[in-house]
């Protein structure tokens, strides 16, 4: 029983980690605490519905459609809302992300109707027994793809020259501008990546559940994940995502489904009280 719960917790947690990673990429690059990240997840699920059910694209093309669509939307949000507001107080920008999420929800419900839709993909959806556990292939695929995406991003960020320029821009916009980095382009790229990672999460969450704007709540689990893991930390976001997934599954199985949120936010509160910089975050060091 416990093994079963841990398996689904870790699988779901991997998706949360992926969404949280997207959140941190945006936060590091542009200092925006993005409350619309949950709706980005929903957008990913609806991009999948559009590509597979409405347009009837073959699966590989549908994946391309989702990734390109999400990346373009991320750039659009940056160009239309974030860039014009850069330099404004943090609170104004946070309000804009909240407004954006509400508008996106309304827009989606206008376009697609309020009812949920099922999403079917050619991904394996059966299950098999392994060491006494019933392993759902969809959960396994979701976790594997999430880890692949996280790994790919980590390698890109750490080892490529564009990744280096992104890290430089995230360190200091002014210093990066002086060093000749196209900071605007780096920020746009960060929003594209952040949106895309959320959308990939949405593709799987939409399939594990039902595609509706209610997925936003699940997408927003990225927020406690990031705070628990450490706001500016990429490994922290992933660890936070896994923890949130495991706690959610343990609480819903052993206490009650509704208690999951209570437990997650209780942990968040404890972390904020005793280790406000998060598990893997760093205390603000020598920021001048």
């Amino acid at each position: 029983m416990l093994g079963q719960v841990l398996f689904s917790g870790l699988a779901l947690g991997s998706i949360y980690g992926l969404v949280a990673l997207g959140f941190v990429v945006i936060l590091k690059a542009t200092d925006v605490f993005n409350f619309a990240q949950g709706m980005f997840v929903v957008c990913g699920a609806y991009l999948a519905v559009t590509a597979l059910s409405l347009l009837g694209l073959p699966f590989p093309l549908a994946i391309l459609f989702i990734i390109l669509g999400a990346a373009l939307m991320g750039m659009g949000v940056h160009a239309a809302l974030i860039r014009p507001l850069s330099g404004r107080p943090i609170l104004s920008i946070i309000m804009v992300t909240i407004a954006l999420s509400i508008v996106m929800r309304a827009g989606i419900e206008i376009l697609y109707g309020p009812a949920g839709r099922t999403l079917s993909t050619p991904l394996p959806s059966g299950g098999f027994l392994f060491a006494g556990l019933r392993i759902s292939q969809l959960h396994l695929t979701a976790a594997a793809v999430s880890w692949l995406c996280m790994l790919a991003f980590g390698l890109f960020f750490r080892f490529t020259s564009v990744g280096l320029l992104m890290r430089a821009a995230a360190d200091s916009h002014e210093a990066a501008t002086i060093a000749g980095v196209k900071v605007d382009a780096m920020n746009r790229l960060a929003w594209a990546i952040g949106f895309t990672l959320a959308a990939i999460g949405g593709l799987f969450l939409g399939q594990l559940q039902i595609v509706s704007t209610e997925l936003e709540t699940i997408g927003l689990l990225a927020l406690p994940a990031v705070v628990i893991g450490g706001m500016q930390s990429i490994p922290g976001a992933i660890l936070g995502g896994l923890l949130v997934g495991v706690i959610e599954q343990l609480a819903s199985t052993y206490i009650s489904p509704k208690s999951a949120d209570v437990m997650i936010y209780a942990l968040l509160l404890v972390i904020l009280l005793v280790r406000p910089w998060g598990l893997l975050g760093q205390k603000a060091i020598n920021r001048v």
Partner: protein
Amino acid sequence: MASLLEVDGISASYGRMGLALDRVSLTVEAGSIVAILGANGAGKTTLIRAISGLLRLHGGAVASGRTLLDGQDVTRFSPDRIVRLGVAQAPEGRMVFKTLSVEDNLAVGAASLPRARRGERMDAIYHLFPRLAERRGQAAGLMSGGEQQMLAVGRALAAAPRLMLIDELSLGLAPLIVKAIYERLGEVVATFGTAILVVEQSARIALRYCDRAYVLEGGRVALSGTAGELSSDERMRDLYLGAAAGH
């Protein structure tokens, strides 16, 4: 033939706060070291920002005048384009990337070069500043002020500039370190042919290491000339050298 850098009657301001630069003109020839002197608020940093395209980032703008690089008008170019045209900067406050390693800091500077030239360029900088080579894996934020200044200069040099701008090179640094960095700059000019435009607080240092100097007062060029001319200028001695000698 056109000079490497020609600032031609630049006026600039921040918002409505009056002119921070008032028709400033100066010239930097290839391979020379030129100093900008002046008290706080004289417009030295504004002048550097006007040349490097950074005024807008600080809410300022060029009102009139032109900056010519090899005769090409670059007045309204974006900062990254100006870097790519061969003007790199070590800014006031050094502004190294604190969370990145020394090596990564230099690599960001070198990123505007073609890939094949980057490694060789970084080696040349490590050769110039062996201290940076020793610390190549360390986070820049953990280094001393002098080392950060070397890194800021190294990052600018990594872009293989024809002209390097240095704002407040000696501010807050021990005299021995200032001397060491200026001696390296002499090597830079000799080996790479890079020209240097440096904002300097200390007139004595400037006149010792630079070919020419311009003195700004209230956003205008009050005095200018070769180091030799200025050393014997009476006004210069009364206002700047006298005060500097007394510290």
